[in-house]
């Protein structure tokens, strides 16, 4: 086991992690002088901070996150999209039709209708209102084709890997295009059936075994094998 991994430990809510005066990052809480885990996951104590990498949990929108959503309904001048969170993403009509425009519902339906899948960015998110999403960028907008897969949002960083290593190796060996949303939704598109199935199997594998070491090697091995 490498040196940095020895500091990681499986924790459950309430488990004591350390008493060291470190910066609290995520899924930990200070009770007196003791740092305690608040989620099921892996504790990660670094030189100056402490956190728990969660293995389960819901997606909370963060500004600049890229997410995949499904349009649910149009209300007033906005679309409301299911972004796999406890909050709905609000996409303003002005974001699509330009500032100062007031499109009719039918115009809005023509552009994006209920059930359409969009790739969007979280433009604003606070505790008071529903998170604002935006599709005003070249890479963003409606997704026309592909296979929609849902995994736990907590496992998305593992799917992407360090500097995108995991996702790149899956894409390279299957010729698939994978659009990853931080909210746990993924769209996989591939011309070859075999490649598509392999990419889906790799994503499922990451979802199931995110807490294990050497996952990248295991996924590579699976991708190199002939069958799915």
């Amino acid at each position: 086991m490498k040196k940095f991994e020895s500091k990681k430990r499986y924790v459950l809510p309430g488990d004591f992690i350390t008493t060291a005066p470190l910066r609290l990052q995520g899924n930990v809480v200070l009770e007196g002088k003791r740092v305690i885990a608040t989620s099921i996951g892996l504790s990660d104590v670094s030189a100056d901070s402490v956190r728990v990498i969660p293995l389960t949990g819901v997606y909370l929108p963060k500004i600049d996150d890229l997410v995949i959503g499904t349009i649910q309904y149009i209300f007033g001048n906005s679309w409301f999209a299911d972004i796999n969170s406890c909050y709905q993403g609000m996409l303003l009509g002005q974001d699509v039709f330009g500032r100062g425009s007031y499109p009719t519902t039918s115009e809005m339906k023509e552009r994006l209708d209920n059930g359409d899948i969009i790739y969007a960015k979280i433009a604003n998110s606070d505790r008071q209102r529903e998170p604002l999403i935006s599709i005003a960028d070249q890479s963003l907008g409606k997704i026309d084709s592909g296979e929609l897969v849902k995994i736990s949002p907590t496992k998305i960083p593992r799917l992407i890997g360090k500097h995108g290593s995991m996702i790149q190796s899956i894409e390279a060996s299957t010729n698939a295009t994978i659009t990853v949303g931080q909210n746990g939704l993924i769209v996989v598109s591939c011309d070859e059936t075999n490649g598509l199935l392999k990419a889906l199997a790799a994503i499922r594998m990451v979802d199931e075994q995110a807490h294990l070491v050497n996952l990248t090697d295991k996924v590579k091995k699976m991708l190199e094998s002939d069958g799915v």
Partner: protein
Amino acid sequence: MGGREANVVLLDENGIRSDGRKVNETRKVTIKAGVLKNASGSAYIEFGGNKILAGVFGPRDVHPKHMSNPDTGILRVRYHMEPFSVGERKKPAPSRREIEISKVIKEALEPAVMLEKFPRTAVDVFLEVLQADGGTRCAALDAASVALADAGIPMRDLVCACASGKAADALILDVNNEEDQAGQADMPIGYMPNLGKITLLQLDGVLTADEYKKCIELGLEGCKQVYEIQKNALREKYFSSGDKD
């Protein structure tokens, strides 16, 4: 309380209880986490003869809207006994007792869950008692706590619960149905072991001040035993194929 069924031998001369346990022994407890696919988190507990299923949904939108809190999420608990859970059919409508137990379980879980991270949402906990054998509120609380952790709701600690009480003039751990009916006292305790805080404490019956203290100590011992089983259930689901720690 107070010896309604005189013909039941609650404690024999060797200190063995009606179901063969010692005075400081709990019934067999098994917990399984993540048993329901459609719920955000779930757990199934068998606590002696009790069989309880817990399902957690959320955080999700609050309906009716006026119940939502702009500062924090809210916790809602529904404890329900199936009509077939007891010997004689129980009417499925919520009874006074079920409403009370829903309330005490909710209040026992609230100090543990950190819902301030999810304003304007609700976390719903559904507890279905499939088979009842005394001590269902404790068993339901144990299952609810595991299901909440399974759902990924941030928690300061797991809440574990176990009852202690008095029967045949002896203090006993984990009161079963006969001991509850014919015994002298029943004291369900909910406890957060890592924080050392009691979140549920009820007492039905009469105890002296000294007995009361000893009863709490005994109950906390039971809670700690249940806590290990809760942790193992979560470890089994999340870390079973792992090789760390």
